[in-house]
């Protein structure tokens, strides 16, 4: 369904953004949690064993955090077609989403502090289906995201509600 000719990819800087975002999350949440669990486990098993398991898990997490974003980046494709927006994402669990232009209720662009640093934005597409976004495109250059937002939200039609 997707090939190089009819689909777009995210900005390559997204890989670095994702790495940084996840590393920060790992340092703030993941590693303290793992160390806490290690201390809890040390009361039951031998301290050395708990330390080795915790250290390995942390190391694996760091490696995973560094290489997984590249795979995700490769798996992500989107295309604005005649009648709908098509988004493909997911490395292990793949998901293709088709949102007809006529059913789009509103389109948001969002930007966190790290994304601003990279000059990137996220695009969230909402329909009447629910309170969560029906499709989202992370890692677009801010000007691209804004152009796409305006383009997608301009098309109207019966919203089927």
């Amino acid at each position, binding site marked *: *369904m997707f090939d190089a000719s009819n689909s777009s990819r995210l900005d390559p800087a997204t890989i670095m953004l994702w790495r940084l975002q996840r590393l920060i999350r790992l340092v703030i949440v993941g590693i303290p949690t793992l160390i806490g669990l290690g201390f809890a486990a040390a009361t039951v098993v031998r301290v050395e064993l708990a330390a080795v398991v915790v250290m390995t898990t942390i190391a694996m997490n760091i490696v995973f955090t560094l290489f997984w974003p590249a795979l995700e980046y490769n798996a992500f494709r989107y295309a604005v077609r005649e009648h709908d927006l098509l988004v493909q994402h997911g490395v292990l669990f793949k*998901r293709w989403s088709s949102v007809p232009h006529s059913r789009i209720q509103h389109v948001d662009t969002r930007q966190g502090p790290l994304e601003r640093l990279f000059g990137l934005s996220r695009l969230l597409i909402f329909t*009447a289906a629910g*309170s969560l976004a*029906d499709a989202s495109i992370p890692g677009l250059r801010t000007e691209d995201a804004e152009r796409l937002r305006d383009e997608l939200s301009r098309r109207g039609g019966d919203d*089927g509600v």
Partner: protein
Amino acid sequence: MGSEDDDNRPLGSEPTEEERTDVIRPNTVIRPIDAPDDLATQEAQGLVQPQVTTIEMLAHGTPRDDPTVGIFLEEIEQTVGIHLQADGLHEAETKLTPDTPWRGLHPISLGVNLLPRAWKTIRNMWPVLIFVVIGGERVGMRFVDMLVVLLFALLSVWNTFIHWATLRYRIHQGRLEIRQGLLNRQARTIDPARIQNVELVQNLFHTWTGLVELRIDTAGEQTTEGLLSALSVEEATTLQNQLANLSSLAGTGDGVNDNSEVVVEMGMAEILAFGLTQRTIGTVALITAVGLELLSQTSPDVAADFTVNMQPAMIVAAFMLAFVASWAVSAISSLFRYFGYAMVRLPETIRTTQGLTTKRRVEIPLSKVQMLRIDEPLMRRWMGFGTVHIETAGLSYAEGEQRQAEGIVPMVEHSDLGRVTALAAPHASIDPWTAPLKPAHPRSLYRALVAATVRSSVMIGLGMSLFGPIRWVLPALLPIALVGAWLDWKKQGWLVTPSAIVSRRGFFNRRTFIIARDKLQSVHRVQGPFMRLHGLSRLVVSVAGSRVSLPETGLADSEWIEAELSRNLDQ
């Protein structure tokens, strides 16, 4: 409605370049030329009566997004005296229509609502109450718990009072307007054409005092958008007829419903049968657990004795007891809820009426029906019945629980299901009981079997490490789970026709979904690593308020469905 700030610009000021891009926006607010700049602020503070006119109000309640609004322009010019130009509104000379008086709730409504609301709050806090009754040896804790419950009850009484004292409503220029609140003021405007469903509720207090509660649901929030907790029947009828004139809802009163047609009625036997087939193993387990807990609280010795010397016969007896109790409760509650059930088809609306002590009447415009869900649990299916749920976009929480469906037809005979669903969803012309459904992909059976094996192995492992003498019965559950998975797979089916999507799943609790294709919001296809191994994927379609999975299909089928669904998207 936060995005229309720029529309509130007084007409005197020059439109900016950006505002000029639209020829005439339907939601444009027309104000008198000499309106003070802070008129909107004053209105919001309640200092002056709001006098807002919009283009579509003038166009006799034409829906906001209706492109035909253009044809009314001449008429609008005559009515308002606005000179309409291609680049916006200029030189307006507005004649505002006279203000409609606000109406309040019925005076007795305070008395009618106070007790039920307080009771509902207390009832919803039953876990706390259980702790208060059986848990608290320490009197101090019990006192604090009681205080919490009391506090919540008082709070709900206070809210009811505020609701009654401050709620004002009216139909003004084609819209329903509701204002309420003491400290946090709220003003809400509802376009009748956007109403998803209307529910009239009469509990015992309402019946005795001749009042009725009106609930109006739109697709916006997850609450009832328009709650008028007590109107006299006469006021409610007037309001409904006014709304009916402005939308596809049906009016009530003399001579209005001559062309109505009763679709389904339910007798006493059917209501009881519905209750008997409703409860599942889960309820039985819960009742058993609560029973044991009560026993261990009241007489610990007996309970300890009971758990130690548990014989298989006793377990069976306990389960039987729980089953009977569960059935009795279920049958009685179903009797209260569905007594006198009838579903009536009006020209553009479905109306259901039900209830013994609390009477309900739900009205759903046919054009708002998003999806039908037909439940056929095993026992009900064996008795030859199914349950039809009619869903609109008005997903809402009511009385502390999420309402699953806006309309329900509890017991429909199997041979009658096709007729009922055709009446409830005329846009989706399909009868899933006669039309041949396509099966799930053969290879998805392997996945189902593997999943069932893994799931039940974990359960059996857990069970065997926990239970005593009966643990050797547990491995027998594995073949049962496998047979269940096979049956479930065998009964799956899907169908995509030019007007409808059908998905059927489940053996023990069979569910059939019928979705009108003109209501489709988005289409998703998901594929996990194991599905990729087998060349399978699963389609998920979403409509406003719900999301439905189709059975797993092969690559060719998936791509065909996707292409088919995107074929006439913009029509």
